[in-house]
């Protein structure tokens, strides 16, 4: 079947099998390898992308279900002005070691700050509770997301 998905503002049209998973469409058909393909069982959250503005596990959505819808991946975070604060936060706070979980963590962190500009550590931990990191022990991921929230809050005050 032919489907069209708008990924990071660009429409990608491909002929796919109905059983094609969104994560494979993003990586193989659209060629965007920033989204990682992890456990395949909707446990690890490495494949997290936004579907119509909400973070979802793309290993558990059919590409066909996203036909006509909007997807945002980690490649869509950076703008002409530079890195998104959530990306900068992971750099500043050493929010990754191996980096496998990072794209998913950043997509969830970005969604959280959009909804709740001043999240508590507990709220951050709840937001990322569907994602697994085997390196950091999560502390630096929580710090990175908080760094991004604080950076945005202070830049809005200064603006």
């Amino acid at each position, binding site marked *: *079947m032919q489907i069209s998905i708008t990924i990071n503002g660009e429409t990608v049209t491909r002929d796919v*099998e*109905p*059983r094609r*998973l969104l994560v*494979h469409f993003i990586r193989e058909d659209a060629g965007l390898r920033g989204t990682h393909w992890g456990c*395949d*069982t*909707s*446990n690890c*959250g490495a494949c*997290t992308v936004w579907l119509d503005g*909400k*973070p*979802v*596990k793309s290993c*558990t*959505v*059919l590409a*066909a*279900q996203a036909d006509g819808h909007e997807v945002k991946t980690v490649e869509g975070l950076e703008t002409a002005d530079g890195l998104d604060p959530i990306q900068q936060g992971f750099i500043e706070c050493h929010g990754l070691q191996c980096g496998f979980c990072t794209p998913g963590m950043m997509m*969830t962190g970005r969604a959280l700050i959009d909804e709740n500009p001043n999240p508590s550590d507990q709220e951050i931990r*709840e*937001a990322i*509770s*569907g*994602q697994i990191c085997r390196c950091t022990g999560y502390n630096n991921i929580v710090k990175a997301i908080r760094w991004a929230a604080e950076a945005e809050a202070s830049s809005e005050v200064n603006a």
Partner: protein
Amino acid sequence: MQTPAPTDYVRATSVANAIALLEEHGEEARLLAGGHSLLPMMKLRVARPEMLIDINDLDELRGIKVEGDELVIGAMVTHNEVLESPVLAEHYAIFREAEKVIADPLVRNRGTVGGSMCQADPSEDLSAVGSALKASVVIQGSSGSRTVPLREFHDGPYTTVVEPNEILTQVRVPIRPGAGSAYEKVERRVGDWAVCAAGSFVVVSGGVVTDCGIGLTAVSAEHFCAPEAEAFLIGKAPTDENLREAANLAAAATDPSSDQRGPADYKRHLAGELTFRALKRSAAASQGA
């Protein structure tokens, strides 16, 4: 790599269209709601439908509203929408308490109320919530719709009274002024299925319990409920002693199995303890504490 077996896919344009598609394709067709049970089962080849009928476009299945003295939850309402619903929180704290411990926030963005009910997993939390609240579901087929109490909905693990050519459209919950409610769950880690969970509502009036409901999951309580424990409480003061006795009756109504989540006697102990805690908080909330 886990990937589903080949299948066809079509988007339903209305509930009537979904039913027509189900009739056309027969038992090899499956409705696709949030997909967070069906797609993993398809990857494991536990489910192998030849036709997926996607019902995500059906706005008539969305929305949470009050109709008369009932709360009406559309089948395609997501877990997150239940979690964040002010109208559900206003009437029953149990919804928010249960949803906070169902899967994780990402899964809750996709998983639906109707999908959870129809999946009928014996460890499903919303089934226990619905059973505790004595909710009913509306099931629609080509010849019309019928309303079925949730306590008559399950034929057994993973099986319900919904026929292959029918669709669950709504969950309806009676509004009970003055009711307090609560949900208590023990899980091995965040996002896991319950080792055991208990939910309840209690209405206390004139110092005695005038109405109550108890729901249990993951411990093989028939229809996820404990009617004998409920009957015991009616007309009695919500003292610790009475609540404890009701909780013991609830535990006796379970038939848990030993598995990787724990031995049967531990789960039965949890059923009693969690029922007691849920009842105690429900009764306190009903009395405005």
